[in-house]
């Protein structure tokens, strides 16, 4: 009999332990990421988290509908990671207001803006008021994730914030960050070596989506297909670019996967295909896969290096 009781208690114990595991599993942190690159970074530091990614590489992150599905996702979030610098100003405030989730309101520790952790390029204070000047981000260019060095700074700050938010996992997060940091620095050196021939290369691009990449690799964007930041290319502006570029075509015309390729294709044809037309993802394609960020940088460097 005592054996039976013992067995029973041990069975009970196992079930209880199992339930505890189930609870702690169901209490895995839910993180809302405005852009896929931040989801990929969160995956590195907090692999077991439940991730809601608001946008993907085929969407323009400036122009997202504040859809009901996104409100529900933000409602469920323990923390949110977004770019800031007005990138999400057309939709995130509506999500925050409708979600009624105090954890991710402005000023709450659960809301992390990556742009606030690095120095942005091309800040233009006071220039945002003119309605005819296009979509100017006074704080600076928000597409900072295309610079792996800045990405590492973001990783450090996000790792600290995550440790504060989830103290039970402090050590594990810190350890994952250390591993990531060491490997990432080594890879930056490798990438820089591989991309050395690209130094000084001139490109035309649509929008400032890759401005940080050009800056990192020592490349130069000599023309923008957009007449004003955020505005679609117009025939008049393209004609002007053609005149400018005809004698000295850029090495490549680079657009993102979410942009309409027609303007870039027209320009490339008019330049008699002397400039390589590249349509590249402006962020990671699938943030849930391992090493999404590293593979994205490799893809960019590979594409730019084929000439």
């Amino acid at each position: 009999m005592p054996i039976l009781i013992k067995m029973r208690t041990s069975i009970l114990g196992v079930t209880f332990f199992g339930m505890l595991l189930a609870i702690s599993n169901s209490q895995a942190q839910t993180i809302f990421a405005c852009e896929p690159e931040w989801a990929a970074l969160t995956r590195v530091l907090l692999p077991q988290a439940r991730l809601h990614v608001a946008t993907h590489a085929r969407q323009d992150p400036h122009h997202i509908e504040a859809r009901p599905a996104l409100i529900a996702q933000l409602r469920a979030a323990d923390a949110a990671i977004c770019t800031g610098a007005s990138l999400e100003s057309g939709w995130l405030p509506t999500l925050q207001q409708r979600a009624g989730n105090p954890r991710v309101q402005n000023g709450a520790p659960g809301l992390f803006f990556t742009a606030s952790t690095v120095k942005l390029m091309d800040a233009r204070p006071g220039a945002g008021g003119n309605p005819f000047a296009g979509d100017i981000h006074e704080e600076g260019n928000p597409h900072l994730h295309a610079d792996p060095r800045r990405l590492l700074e973001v990783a450090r700050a996000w790792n600290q914030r995550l440790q504060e938010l989830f103290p039970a996992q402090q050590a594990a997060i810190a350890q994952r960050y250390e591993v990531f940091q060491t490997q990432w620095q080594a890879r930056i050196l490798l990438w820089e070596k591989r991309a050395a021939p690209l130094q000084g290369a001139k490109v035309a691009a649509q929008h400032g989506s890759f401005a940080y990449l050009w800056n990192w690799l020592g490349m130069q964007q000599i023309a923008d297909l957009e007449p004003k930041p955020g505005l679609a290319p117009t025939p008049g502006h393209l004609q002007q670019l053609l005149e400018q570029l005809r004698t000295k075509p850029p090495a490549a015309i680079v657009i993102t996967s979410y942009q309409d390729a027609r303007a870039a294709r027209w320009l490339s044809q008019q330049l008699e295909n002397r400039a390589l037309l590249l349509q590249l993802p402006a962020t990671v394609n699938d943030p849930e896969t391992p090493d999404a960020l590293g593979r994205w940088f490799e893809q960019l460097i590979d594409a730019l290096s084929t000439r």
Partner: protein
Amino acid sequence: MNKPSFLLAAMLSSIFSAQAQQVGSAEQWQFGAVLDATSTSRALELGTRDKGLQLGHSDLTASGPLGRHLQAQISAVVATHEGKLEKSFEEAWLETRTLPLGLSARIGRFASQIGYLNQQHPHADDFVERPLLYRAFLGSHWNDDGLRLNLTLPTKFYWMVGAEAFRGHKLVAHADPAVSGAGAFTVATKIGGDLNRSHSWQVGLSYLKNRRIAALEEDHEEHMDHEHEEDEHEHSHAHGAQFGGKQMWLIDGTWKWAPDGNNQNQQVRLTVEAARVTGINRFATSGQKHEALSLSAVWRFQPAWEVGARFDRLRVAIPHEDHFHAGRLNEQALMLAWKPSHRQSLRLQLSRQHGAVGFEQAARRSVALQYVLAFGAHGAHTY
């Protein structure tokens, strides 16, 4: 008027202190202005735009945080109406941001959340005039002084339930009857989600209970003699709802499509709204009701170009002493909009009203050209 102006003073004084504290953080007060200039060939029946060049719903808006727990917004509107420049505070509210359990509360003057369009600022509309439903039953855009409590449920899809209490002045077309306290109550729920990357949807159901109509009835009895003078006066700038009742039910549905959810280059938006108003007055039987239906479709076919069509239907029971006359009106609108950026839009709209019974001013055809320009910060858009 006392409550909003007090609130306004309190908010203005806090803005500057809040501004000082917020420097350097991601969150600051934002200021913006919107200009709407519209030229119309002929005024529409139940319309808000007069013939000729007019200043439409143009506003000056300030919004931002009051500490960590509150969000505030003030919006002053100017518009020309029958040759006169009219000014008003359209919004002046405070909203909580840190209540638990998905709750949020709002106090002040704001637009009711019933229906799909009512909460949207008119300058963000896809058409020059609101649907007949809004013009007939809600004074085009119903904003009022009141309170709101909303709950966003912790479901996988979006589910919101909310209730509001308002003074309800704008819901009656005639002289304001004496009702103490809140004159109108609403209950609304919205559900929505994504079907896949390209398709999203939302449906809503709202109910409005209007106490002012009943009061208007009694008032009507007592002041029969004055009624005509007041009527004339009120009609010259009636902003209130033209057709009211004790209860109103509203259903709305929206479906949006964009390839891969990337609405920058292409998008289709479909919206349907239907309303039924009952309890028109004490002579009304259950058969007497007002009904309206609106169906709109807009297609962004190029990054800067949109084309859209809207079909409106209105059926009302027009009270006449102790009986009713049937009123009918149909309206169709076709629009083409050029939006070189989201701060500017130029819209050409053709409207047609037909099948009018009981509406003498129905315009057979009307052409409108509208230009909207936004300065400074423009608030985030709703779905």
